[in-house]
């Protein structure tokens, strides 16, 4: 009984914590994206609501909550309603294993990294559901593109993560952080780091790989028909996905929470937001790839490189 109560409290607190983190993170990231894009483009970005527009996203969120939830007439209603949830839940699940600091993590599973990758693949399912059920040709095209390109970046993503995992010899995220006590993995695996960032950008469907959304081609891609809070959930999931990919990259390559002077949590968040800044920087610099070009890039460059990196890592471990 005691155990059940404690466990219940733990789950409750974690859930509240995660949802709180997800919302605050998304609010912050949207503001950050606006500011980064604005300053790259020589303009100040939002300035009116709050200090330097800090509360702008809250105002926008309120607006979205107030909007009508439109369901297209011929939509497949059940799937249409489920798609945002399917998009969002796996994102929440991934937070279970992310180690924010030595003490601040929900569950230290020994297959942590596997869990994150397994659940992140479900985003494609959600995109397919959204695109299919909207009964809109643009949405459908976006969904098809998303499915078609999945393998192109998921395989190299897993293989590059594998290079780190065989170095460490564990799938447990805390073990991977512990391994980088002195030297960060990025020094051993610079190529893997670069590949991971590229694939991670594709994983989060962000420019230059925002092919399923492709504003100028497919209007808004798979979420064309979504409005109000349903659209907001897709938006929230995108930014949370960014956080997770960056958190995984931090754990795998940048030594997780490790760093001098500052507390571990601060170090962790600093590294995560640095990687997110990198991804935003990409978005506001590059044009979009065509989707067959992404597949070509995946199969002809990313997969061979990641395989070569894996083999080299294995050889190096065997020799030293």
């Amino acid at each position: 009984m005691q155990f059940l109560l404690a466990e219940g409290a733990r789950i409750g607190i974690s859930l509240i914590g995660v949802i709180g983190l997800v919302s605050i993170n998304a609010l912050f990231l949207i503001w950050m994206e606006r500011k980064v894009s604005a300053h790259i483009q020589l303009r100040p970005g939002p300035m009116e609501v709050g200090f330097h527009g800090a509360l702008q996203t809250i105002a926008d969120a309120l607006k979205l909550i107030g909007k009508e939830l439109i369901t297209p007439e011929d939509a497949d209603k059940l799937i249409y309603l489920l798609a945002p949830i399917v998009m969002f839940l796996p994102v929440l699940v991934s937070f279970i294993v992310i180690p924010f600091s030595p003490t601040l993590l929900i569950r230290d599973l020994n297959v942590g990294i596997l869990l994150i990758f397994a659940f992140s693949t479900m985003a494609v399912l959600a995109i397919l559901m959204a695109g299919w059920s909207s009964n809109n040709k643009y949405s459908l095209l976006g969904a098809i593109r998303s499915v078609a390109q999945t393998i192109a970046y998921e395989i190299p993503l897993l293989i590059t993560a594998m290079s780190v995992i065989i170095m460490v010899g564990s799938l447990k995220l805390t073990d991977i952080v512990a391994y980088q006590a002195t030297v960060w993995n990025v020094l051993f695996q610079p190529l893997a780091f670069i590949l991971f960032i590229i694939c991670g950008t594709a994983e989060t469907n962000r420019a230059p790989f925002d092919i399923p959304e492709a504003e100028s081609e497919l209007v808004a891609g798979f979420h064309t028909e979504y409005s109000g809070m349903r659209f907001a959930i897709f938006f929230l999931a995108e930014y949370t996905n960014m956080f997770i990919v960056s958190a995984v990259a931090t754990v795998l390559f940048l030594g997780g929470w490790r760093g001098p002077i500052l507390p571990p949590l601060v170090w962790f968040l600093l590294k995560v937001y640095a990687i997110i800044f990198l991804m935003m920087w990409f978005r506001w610099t590059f044009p979009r790839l065509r989707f067959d070009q992404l597949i070509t890039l995946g199969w002809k460059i990313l997969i061979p490189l990641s395989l070569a990196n894996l083999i080299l890592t294995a050889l190096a471990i065997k020799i030293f």
Partner: protein
Amino acid sequence: MTAFIKDTLIGFWSLLAGLGVTIRYFVKPIVTVQYPREKLTMSPRYRGHTEFIIDPETGSHLCNACENCARTCPSNVISVTGVKVAGTKKKRAVTYVLDYSLCSLCGLCVEVCPTKALKFSDEYRLAGFSRQDMIIDVIARLQAQQRALGLPEEVPPVPEAEEAKTEETKGGEGES
């Protein structure tokens, strides 16, 4: 194969160079004007709606209601009425009203004016809540300017009751 690797490397380098450009701009100061907080001065030839020039000699306008502007206007923006001033043979404007919502800012009215009575105002905050807000009484505007300058206000001549020959011409027919 070597060509492929070379292309890939050059491509990768080009991406890094592009990132270099954007980060350089990232730290540059912004160039936009924060409109309601900062305001730009309009250029000397900015075309707002038209208004009367205040003649330094008479302290009032020079419009003799010849209606050239109303006739030249492609969009029937201007309506002018005038009466003969008692004692002289000259006409003088009684009303001069613009329907600014129709204006296409060509500036032909200013050019065609024989007495050079018109100029462009530098008013650019022209948004309104109704169509009525777009109708500009130029004489009332002149009176307001005269008040601001401390000049005696323009008093439009009153048409005499019996021989009031107020004729209103809508421009745009071309022929007349």
